[in-house]
């Protein structure tokens, strides 16, 4: 039962990793994208901001997790 589940999990991840292979060339007409933004390197600013926010939220959740863990220990 367990090995079967593991096999399925490995199969799933193989499929996920194979997804980009199915990418096909874009033949659609020229659509304006934020290529300039990327060329100027400014998209990295957005990524930086989001990673910062994520780090802050994660830090907060981890702190909360620890605090509740402590509370549980006290009550035991």
């Amino acid at each position, binding site marked *: 039962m367990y090995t079967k589940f593991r096999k399925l999990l490995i199969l799933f991840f193989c499929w996920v990793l194979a997804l980009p292979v199915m990418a096909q060339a874009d033949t659609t007409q020229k659509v304006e994208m934020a290529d300039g933004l990327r060329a100027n390197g400014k998209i990295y600013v957005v990524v930086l901001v989001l990673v910062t926010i994520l780090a802050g939220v994660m830090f907060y959740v*981890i702190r909360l997790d620890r605090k509740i863990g402590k509370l549980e220990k006290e009550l035991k």
Partner: protein
Amino acid sequence: MLRQTWWKILCVLLLAYTVIAGFLGTVPAKPIVNETIRNLYFHVAMWMAMMVFLSVSVVYAILYLRKPSHVYDIYSLEYAKVGIVFGTLGIITGSEWAGFTWGAFWSNDPKQLGAVIAMLIYYAYLVFRNGIPDIDKRARLGAVYNIFAFAMLFPTIWILPRMVESLHPGGMGGNPAFNDLDPRMALVWVAGAIPGWTLLGIWIATLRIRLALVEEKKYSNRP
């Protein structure tokens, strides 16, 4: 599961991957949506995660009705709450996205209306529960309501919007933007955004569950 660490680390890694690959990865160039196609990793992920939480919630509601244990009720309630938070964020982010692509923040699209109805049903779940002072009765009636609310989710957000014309993908006519998900995006979507946001919600729900269990213990220990 409740107090293990590995899946929390996985959650942080997957969300970091989602945010980084979500912005730096290549996406297909499509008219109107342009770069906002990346909202798939954030806006749509809210709904996927919400479905998971509300499904877990209804499972615990059924478990409660089979064997009335207060712990099941706590699980059911906290997963419903986190599902409501994610669903509400889904509506807000969807409206923001629509404002810059469909031309209006609110256009009474069938799926927008369906999502609002579904959310109102779940808000009513919380109000309904709190209106019952007796805790056993509250848990039992809450569990019954939860099952009906879950049953209403499917017509309101999955079925009805697809039977009429909708700006959302999947409706008759309407939006062709996402009919075939680009494989490069599928990787971030399936391996990053869905599991990442879902794990974050589960994390928050388990924290609240632990807090509720601690509170209960405190009161039961009282002389």
